[in-house]
């Protein structure tokens, strides 16, 4: 009798222990507060945090704020004596300011033995900082952050509409124009819609087209050569392409189309193709938000006719402030270690997030129709890069974003816009004592 009870007891204990086994055993840690943006993937993130709390018993509090407020709060906290946050989620554009300012703690300083799993995507090394070069690179750079959510733009299209018209999803820009010729029936239907709003919207979207043609903004920022090359013939061709597609395929007010507008046009069915970030995928699967549930698919962005595929990454980076207690730093890093694990990322994906590990992206999830975006995502990541990765990034973006928008609305020719942008950008670099210059001007 006693042997059976022992056996049952042992079995029960085993089962109980297994049920509560955390994905990664991080031990008992201090409660932490994470500065978090209010984004569509927040529910997925909240769910994964709850799972962490259940499994490990460690407390994690999310201080959720709207987009701009995250930067403001991060700055206030990090520049002051700190202490309000034990981890901050930084948009890729803000990481450089924080790295250069010395506000963050490299992961190696907290745990010298820490190495991230090799399956963890680095998203073009946005989490590494090389102080000498003032550049984000893993070569000679310290690990300061890792990506919690990596966004790339993809090409959305209506499977039913394209099939009916006998059009295949376009792989090149000329194919996009050809598809529009068949699909664009204003005012009831727009063939394809692109973001044209001034500033970050048009800059971000257009840069993929620019990179596809091999154009660059500066010659070699990584090695300190900030000669401005934005006004090259390749750039001009890319801008002309962009304007042509926006005008021939989209609504009559291209200069005011923002991300919300693209989502609106696609989810109401008024637009049948569009360039949009991957993270918006979930919007189209929800019947309360979309009239085209199950009819949307994604492919990598179309490239220039004789160009390569290219994409610009927009990602959220998890970083740990320098000015908090060692115990809190350890706790924040512990959560990070847990979040980087296969199981945690798998759960994150299932909850609606975008995983950051290659093995999860190649797992059995790919067979699930809810994750039909994964092949396009993996394909895009092969050539996706970070752009504007220098301290003057925000200024450059605004200068470029203004001129591109002005070209789009017809205020100036594409050549003049790019020349003007080049001049503005050169002035910015000059003021910051970078080695800079201009290339030959374009015909205007």
């Amino acid at each position, binding site marked *: 009798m006693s042997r059976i009870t022992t056996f049952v007891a042992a079995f029960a204990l085993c089962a109980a222990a297994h049920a509560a086994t955390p994905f990664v055993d991080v031990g008992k840690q201090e409660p932490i507060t994470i500065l978090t943006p*209010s984004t569509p993937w927040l529910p997925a993130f909240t769910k994964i945090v709850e799972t962490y709390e259940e499994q490990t018993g460690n407390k994690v509090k999310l201080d959720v704020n709207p987009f701009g407020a995250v930067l403001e709060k991060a700055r206030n906290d990090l520049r002051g004596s700190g202490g309000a946050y034990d981890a901050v989620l930084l948009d890729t554009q803000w990481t450089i300011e924080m790295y250069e300012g010395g506000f963050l703690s490299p992961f190696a300083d907290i745990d010298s033995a820490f190495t991230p799993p090799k399956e963890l995507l680095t998203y073009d090394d946005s989490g590494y900082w090389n102080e000498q070069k003032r550049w984000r690179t893993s070569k000679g750079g310290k690990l300061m952050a890792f990506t919690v959510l990596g966004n790339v733009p993809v090409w959305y299209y209506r499977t039913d509409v394209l099939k009916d018209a006998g059009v295949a999803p376009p792989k090149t820009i000329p194919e996009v124009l050809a598809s529009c010729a068949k699909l664009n029936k204003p005012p009831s239907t727009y063939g394809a819609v692109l973001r044209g709003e001034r500033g970050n919207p048009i800059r971000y979207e257009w840069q993929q087209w620019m990179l596809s043609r091999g154009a660059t903004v500066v010659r070699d920022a990584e090695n300190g050569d900030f000669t401005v090359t934005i006004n090259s013939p390749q750039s001009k061709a890319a801008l002309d392409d962009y304007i042509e597609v926006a005008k021939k395929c989209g609504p009559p007010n291209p200069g005011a189309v923002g991300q919300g507008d693209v989502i609106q046009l696609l989810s109401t069915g008024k637009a049948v193709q569009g360039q949009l970030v991957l993270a918006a995928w979930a919007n189209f699967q929800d019947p309360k938000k979309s009239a085209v549930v199950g009819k949307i698919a994604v492919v990598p962005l179309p490239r220039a006719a004789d160009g390569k595929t290219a994409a610009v990454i927009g990602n959220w980076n998890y970083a740990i402030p320098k000015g908090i207690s060692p115990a809190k730093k350890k706790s924040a890093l512990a959560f990070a270690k847990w979040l980087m694990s296969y199981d945690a990322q798998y759960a994150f994906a299932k909850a609606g997030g975008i995983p950051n590990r290659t093995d999860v992206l190649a797992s059995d999830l790919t067979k699930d129709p809810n994750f039909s975006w994964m092949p396009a995502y993996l394909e895009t990541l092969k050539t996706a890069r970070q752009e504007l990765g220098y301290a003057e990034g925000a200024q450059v973006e605004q200068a470029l974003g203004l001129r591109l928008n002005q070209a789009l609305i017809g205020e100036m020719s594409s050549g003049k816009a790019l020349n003007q942008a080049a001049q503005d950008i050169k002035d910015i670099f000059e003021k910051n004592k970078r080695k800079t210059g201009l290339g030959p001007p374009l015909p205007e």
Partner: protein
Amino acid sequence: MTGWVLVVLALCVVVGPFLWIFMTSFKTQIDILSGAWAFTPTLDAYADVLLSKRSDFGHAVYTSAIVATASTAIVLVIGTLAAYSLYRFAWPRWVTAGFLGWTLALHMIPVITLVGPWYLIFKELGLYDTRTALVLTHVTINLPMAVWLMMAFMRTLPPEIEEAAVVDGCSPVQAFLRVTLPLLVPGFIATGVLTFIFSWNDFAIALALTSQQNATVPVVVSKFANDYEVLHAQMAASSVLATLPALVLMFIGQRFIVQGLTMGAVK
């Protein structure tokens, strides 16, 4: 006759968009995006605003109510007193012009540049993320308008009334409380209403000086403007819900002021 038409027209224009917002709060996101007029109403947005974990709306209303009421009360008291002092008690020119000019100049500074230093001050004082900090800063930004407004209303009063009260043997404080204040009730209400609204609707300061536990209503409402999409229904619902408590509080406040100020009035 044309008067009536204009008033009715004004009412329609004023209330129209708000009614549209009200209607929007009962639609699903896709109905809103397609501008549908025929739709099945749903309470999802209200549920999300009031019950979900993302927003702490009830607590935000509570915080906003306390901060707005407290700062309005303080502004009305010290602002009216200061305005009365400047108006009635012949201060030298440099005092009046100096104080009025200083308040106006500070009022011109965009709040975004004031918030940084205030954050540091309150952090040093250990008052970061407290209602006290919000009350103090709201008093500061609303004091200029309150002082100037009350002075303007005082200027419309006939000066003989006060002099009569003094001749009758009223002390200065009594003259102020019994004679001047009751006459200022409409102005007092207008100033109070505006101060309350500006405090209630302040976003920039509340965002910088509080974290989630002391968030005010505008901060909570702004969370529905996501990374790249606006949750229109929730934003509409929270706007409706934000307007109602404020209206109720102001309605009560108006009654209170009218009763309180005219109680000791001397004819």
